[in-house]
């Protein structure tokens, strides 16, 4: 029956975690119903589907809920084995992708969060740490992309493309809010070209959140964080 094959996604417009899942669904051409959650007033359904974390994204497939974007992405790749494959087939290459996925999330994505929510000396320290990890990443990605990062299309998006994009796509807004330079094309040309190429991919363009709205939200997040730390 049609209802049994349904895919639903509980999300929030500004969440980069939700975006990761949407990119994967759209790139694979999987139809889904999107449900916007008001995180200050979470729906009963969300609380039932994700009682442990009470967060978005939650993917519901045939009535079965899955939480945590990294878990959802692997599930999507294993359930819809159509292009683009988010992970390679070879176990050794899969391990490399998973290793870098963990690195991007912990050393880059979360570091940017710390930069946005800090100021003064703390922010300077956080920024230096991020830039050093970006140096490591830049160096190692030369091996992954010996010919550069052009040529990414809807049909060839992989997990690392999604994660790099989730981390750095809104870099201009991040830099404006935080008041520091994050993505310098001279220091990190591979990351920079990767991000700018990803920003041109059709499925990414469809999912860019409204600029002013995102700016205002991140500004609010920063102000809140700085208030509570004094």
């Amino acid at each position, binding site marked *: 029956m049609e209802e049994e094959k349904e895919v639903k996604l509980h999300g929030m417009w500004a969440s980069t975690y939700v975006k990761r899942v949407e990119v994967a669904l759209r790139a694979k051409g999987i139809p889904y119903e999107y449900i916007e959650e008001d995180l200050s007033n979470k729906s009963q359904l969300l609380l039932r589907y994700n009682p442990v974390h009470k967060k978005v994204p939650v993917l519901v497939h045939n009535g079965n809920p899955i939480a945590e974007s*990294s878990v959802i992405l*692997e599930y999507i790749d294993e359930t819809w084995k159509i292009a683009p494959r988010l992970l390679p087939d070879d176990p050794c290459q899969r391990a490399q992708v998973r*290793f870098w996925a963990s690195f991007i999330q912990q050393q880059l994505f979360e570091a940017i969060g710390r930069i946005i929510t800090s100021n003064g000396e703390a922010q300077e320290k956080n920024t230096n740490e991020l830039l050093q990890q970006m140096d490591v990443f830049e160096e190692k990605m030369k091996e992954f992309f010996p010919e550069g990062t052009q040529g990414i299309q809807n049909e060839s998006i992989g997990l690392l493309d999604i994660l790099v994009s989730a981390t750095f796509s809104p870099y201009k807004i991040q830099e404006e809010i935080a008041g520091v330079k994050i993505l310098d094309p001279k220091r990190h040309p591979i990351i920079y070209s990767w991000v700018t190429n990803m920003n041109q991919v059709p499925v990414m363009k469809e999912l860019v959140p409204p600029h002013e709205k995102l700016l205002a939200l991140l500004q609010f997040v920063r102000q809140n964080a700085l208030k509570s730390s004094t």
Partner: protein
Amino acid sequence: MSEEVKVFGFWCSPFSRRVELALKLKGVQYEYIEEDVFKNKSPLLLKYNPVHKKIPVLLHNGKPIAESLVILEYIEETWKANPILPEDPYEKAMVRFWTKFADEKCLPALWKAGWSPENEREKAVDEACECLKTLESALKGKRFFGGETVGLVDIAANFIAFWLRLIQEATGQELLSAEKFPDLFKWTDEFGSCSVVKESLPPRDKLLAFFKARVAEAMDAQTNASK
């Protein structure tokens, strides 16, 4: 032709023990290399894990893999005996969800609760107990998280089954008790009594002494700080 499998680890690390347990469960022969992680990491380790410079590292036919959970998934995909993940994608997703929970939420909360200073202790203990309660709900009366056999969640939660008890003994703090968490407590006994698990645990007395020394260090530091 024999496959070359090596594990770079540290005797008291639950992370390298996870890798050893998975290999033993699957009957994979491997060479173990002990790293002196505090004082003198080997050039080989730094070559095989230049990004994090940490153990564990699995070396398979010359190719290195780092990060214990990444290694566990690789082991599962490479050696098919005694699977630690279900075949069904949804069941697999549930296992990965709980593995992540045990690793990213439970472990740090328990570690923090074990070692936090007096003034932060109550809050840290509350958070740790919340984590244990939530993790316990994933057991659902089963013998192991993996059902009848040890699975990925059991392996990832190895810290709770063994290291935690010794930390409790060393610090005098009880986080995981039979009264508060009967199912989880029972699981620690089930898990700990598997022969394969027993073979891949650090020596009890040595680990207890290690934690007691840390407790003494922490107390010294506190006394000196308040002078």
